[in-house]
């Protein structure tokens, strides 16, 4: 409880400490999260996702600078992958964010995925809540460099920015399911490079096709803008900031803000339930029983569903 109180008072060391506790999971983290939860719900959570090397970190750096100029405080969570072999991670996003050093209106935290596969860490959602409670007006969440289907960010963020760069693939890539579908704003970064105009056009065409075949759940009233930036020199970033503000206004006026909040609450709840139920089951039957059934499945003595019924029964 003490930690939560210090965070509400603006203690940055307490904030950093709680984030570590959340990553390691356990009772102290949960108590602090419970105490902070009533103070959440004010921050605009903006996700930045895209393939490796599209310039996400550089764009986040520029967005944060622009937001500061517009008077907003900014919390940043930058996620990089954990090695599945050693459990270690090299978190390098701060290299591109050196402009933000020394500003008390900014807090940057690097996170390793620690085994999660959706582009974020298990703890990212909770860390966002802590930054929200600490009073940051905008929380920028940079995902790992993603492929096509790591779309967890759409459940964590109010506004999702998908970053593309010229030369990464033909226009069929833009038609594939996944990443394109979660974009509220599309950014073609490195727009000073050859092929930027074609990339932007391919995205526009894909969006048009998507609108014509608008299925259920499609947000027909918001057309994701396709914006061109050169994050290295800041060009086009002001337009992205305007689009972020416009998207927030749209979410609020359309009632989508509260709908997304409810969807997120539901996803958080089911996720937490899954983890808790698994932990309780393992505590009851023991790791040894799990290993034993895994062995039997591997030896073809039982299939997984039979094993599940046996473990639950």
């Amino acid at each position, binding site marked *: 409880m003490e930690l939560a109180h210090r965070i509400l008072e603006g203690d940055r060391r307490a904030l950093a400490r709680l984030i570590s506790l959340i990553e390691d999971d356990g009772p102290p983290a949960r108590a602090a999260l419970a105490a902070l939860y009533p103070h959440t719900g004010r921050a605009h959570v903006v996700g930045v996702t895209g393939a490796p090397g599209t310039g996400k970190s550089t764009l986040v750096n520029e967005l944060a600078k622009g937001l500061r100029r517009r008077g907003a405080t900014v919390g940043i969570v930058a996620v990089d992958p954990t090695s599945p072999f050693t459990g270690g991670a090299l978190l390098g996003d701060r*290299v591109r964010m050196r402009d933000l050093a020394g500003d008390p209106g900014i807090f940057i935290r690097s996170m390793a995925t620690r085994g999660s596969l959706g582009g974020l860490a298990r703890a990212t959602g909770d860390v966002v809540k802590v930054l929200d409670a600490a009073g940051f007006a905008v929380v920028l969440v940079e995902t790992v460099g993603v492929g096509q289907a790591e779309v967890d960010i759409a459940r964590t963020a109010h506004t999702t920015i998908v970053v593309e760069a010229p030369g990464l693939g033909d226009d069929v890539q833009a038609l594939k399911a996944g990443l394109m579908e979660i974009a509220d704003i599309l950014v073609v970064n490195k727009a000073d490079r050859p092929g930027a105009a074609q990339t932007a056009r391919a995205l526009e065409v894909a969006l048009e096709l998507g609108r014509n075949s608008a299925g259920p759940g499609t947000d027909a009233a918001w057309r994701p803008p396709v914006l061109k930036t050169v994050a290295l020199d800041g060009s086009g970033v002001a337009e992205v900031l305007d689009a972020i503000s416009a998207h927030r206004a749209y979410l609020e006026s359309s009632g989508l803000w509260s709908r997304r909040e409810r969807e997120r609450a539901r996803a958080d709840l089911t996720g937490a339930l899954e983890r808790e139920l698994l932990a309780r089951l393992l505590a009851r039957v023991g790791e040894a029983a799990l290993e034993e059934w895994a062995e039997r499945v591997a030896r073809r003595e039982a299939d997984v569903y039979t094993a599940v019924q046996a473990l639950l029964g």
Partner: protein
Amino acid sequence: MGERLRVLIAKPGLDGHDRGAKVVARALRDAGMEVIYTGLRQTPEMIVEAALQEDVDAVGLSILSGAHMTLVPRVLQGLREAGLDHIKVFVGGIIPDEDVPALKEAGVEAIFGPGTSTQTIVEAVRRACSEG
């Protein structure tokens, strides 16, 4: 899940060679640690701020410029002023033998010169951080 060691690797000062820092960062990563790499030309203030925000257990400073006798004490002092004296500080790079006692006296945990094996560094970081 147990607590995982977090280490900040930084290059204070103006020299532009970060190969050694990258080799060490990679070795610590391969040893299962979470390594926050901050890149070149960090001021002592930037390093202290990053160490605070990232809640690290250790800071590794790579210095080849010869400015270690001014930069390292400023990092140590900054950490103390921020209430972060529990963080272990390591220095790697080209440090003349005669400067080693003074740096250790100032609070540096260990100093790794050219040719130190990454295994030695990994073990030293692990040992220092487990002492608490």
